[in-house]
């Protein structure tokens, strides 16, 4: 009995042993042999009950495993980005989890019917009934928590996908605008695959298990991804639309438009660059202008000063000639004296 029951258990082996002894003393030939087997389960007197406990413990284990898977899925969701093609894993994992949850649901309902059957059949005492119902309720509440967790993870994932969609739309609004104008009736080759896929998606939606809008939406997307047929509408909603994969005409056109748009934005950037550089150089030109004006004024002042000097020099000449004559006269007189 692999009892890895997540519910805590009390080791009532001693009670069990004493009970078996008393019953044997009383004359309990009616008790079957499993009674003498040592076991760890509390109050495992009848095989049916132990079977109930077996199932319960198994269900608890599966719930635990499912919650671990949900944690893994949430980690994957957080780590995926536009350029990280993990959505397939995500979707497989979520499919797996969904299957687990549904099977667990069924198992728990089976358990409950088993319990009800037993209660009616065996006419258990009040304590046992209470115990059975408690175990069932516990498992049900745990399963509800797990499903809630799963839902949260799926909502987070759809939010992520929407964020990626929006970012893609920022770069590809021209595509969706062009397509109504440019898309000729050439999608004749494409509608057949599309109609089949939309049929299957419709069928899938109807057979949706938990009935939540979020898992169904993800199922739809998963179906689209596995069909590998992105066309113009779903281009934008696909996460793996980085490189155009198919050779269809509309795809090629969309890619070309994207190229054109990116080129245009590059050109815009180059123009702004150019504008800043020219503005800087304008500043340099202003500096040069100021320097030149300063030097002009300096040179003009120097010129006027020199002109004044020149005038003075030229006007003083006659006086200077006279002064020189007088000096020479004096020199001559002195020389005559010496001689």
């Amino acid at each position, binding site marked *: 009995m692999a009892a890895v029951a997540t519910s805590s258990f009390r080791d009532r082996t001693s009670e069990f042993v004493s009970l078996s002894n008393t019953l044997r003393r009383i004359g309990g030939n009616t008790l079957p042999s499993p009674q003498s087997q040592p076991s760890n389960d509390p109050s495992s007197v009848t095989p049916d009950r132990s079977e109930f406990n077996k199932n319960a413990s198994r269900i608890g284990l599966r719930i635990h495993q499912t919650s671990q898977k949900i944690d893994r899925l949430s980690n994957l969701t957080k780590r995926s980005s536009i350029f990280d093609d993990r959505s397939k894993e995500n979707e497989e994992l979520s499919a797996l989890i969904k299957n687990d949850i549904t099977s667990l649901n069924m198992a728990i309902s089976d358990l409950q019917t088993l319990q009800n059957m037993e209660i009616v059949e065996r006419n258990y005492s009040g304590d046992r009934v209470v115990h059975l119902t408690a175990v069932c309720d516990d498992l049900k509440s745990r399963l509800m928590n797990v499903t809630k967790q799963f839902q949260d993870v799926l909502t987070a994932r759809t939010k992520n996908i929407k964020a990626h969609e929006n970012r893609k739309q920022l770069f590809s609004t021209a595509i969706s605008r062009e397509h109504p104008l440019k898309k000729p009736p050439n999608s004749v080759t494409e509608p057949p695959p599309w109609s089949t896929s939309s049929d299957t998606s419709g069928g899938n939606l109807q057979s949706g298990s938990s009935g939540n809008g979020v898992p169904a939406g993800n199922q739809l997307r998963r179906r689209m991804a596995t069909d590998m047929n992105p066309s113009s509408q779903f281009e934008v909603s696909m996460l793996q639309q980085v490189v155009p994969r198919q050779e269809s005409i509309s795809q*090629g056109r969309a890619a070309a438009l994207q190229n054109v748009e990116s080129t245009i934005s590059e050109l815009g950037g180059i123009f702004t660059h150019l504008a800043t*550089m020219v503005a800087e150089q304008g500043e340099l030109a202003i500096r040069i202008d100021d*320097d030149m004006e300063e030097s002009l004024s300096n040179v003009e002042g*120097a010129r006027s*000063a020199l002109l004044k000097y020149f005038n003075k020099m030229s006007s003083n000449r006659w006086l200077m000639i006279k002064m020189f004559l007088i000096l020479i006269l004096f020199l001559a007189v002195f020389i005559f004296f010496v001689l």
Partner: protein
Amino acid sequence: MVKITALLVLKCIPEGSDPVILVNASDLSSFGFFQRPSVKEFIIFVGRTVAKRTPPGQRQSVQNDEYKVHSYNQNGLCVLGFMDDHYPVRSAFSLLNKVMDEYQKNFGDSWKTVQTDNAQQWPYLSEALTKFQDPAEADKLLKIQRELDETKIILHKTIDSVLERGEKLDSLVEKSSDLSAASQMFYKQAKKTNQCCTIL
């Protein structure tokens, strides 16, 4: 280089029977002189086969050795183009579209009554053949992309020349500041000499 070898317009309304050639324009200059008739026959034959196999309202591309045959069938009027592998598929189909529209504008519905290969001369088709040898003519997107690339190259060159201009302006700034300093010294010297020799 990318090349169009032939453009054909056929009528394939009675489906199942052989399509009827309405107009035929081909450029066989790349083939030797003696091969031309056989190539012409080959084009006609392949054209008929492909047109027969193209359901109405659909486009098709068939690979044939080194040639691709693109066909577009619209309500029984089929336009075919024989192009080499490098010709972009998109521009091929936009070219076929254009030819189709032109034909319908020019000839209306008169083609529906034609029963034999009359191969009427339609100068537009031969012009189109020569004009659209360059895929950019047929496909506006290609043209736009090409022009944008050229513009980008021109802008890069512009930015380089602006950088050079910036360097020259830098040297000019330096020189002008030197000049202003020198002129200031000159002014001071002149004033000094003026003040000194007032006695004489």
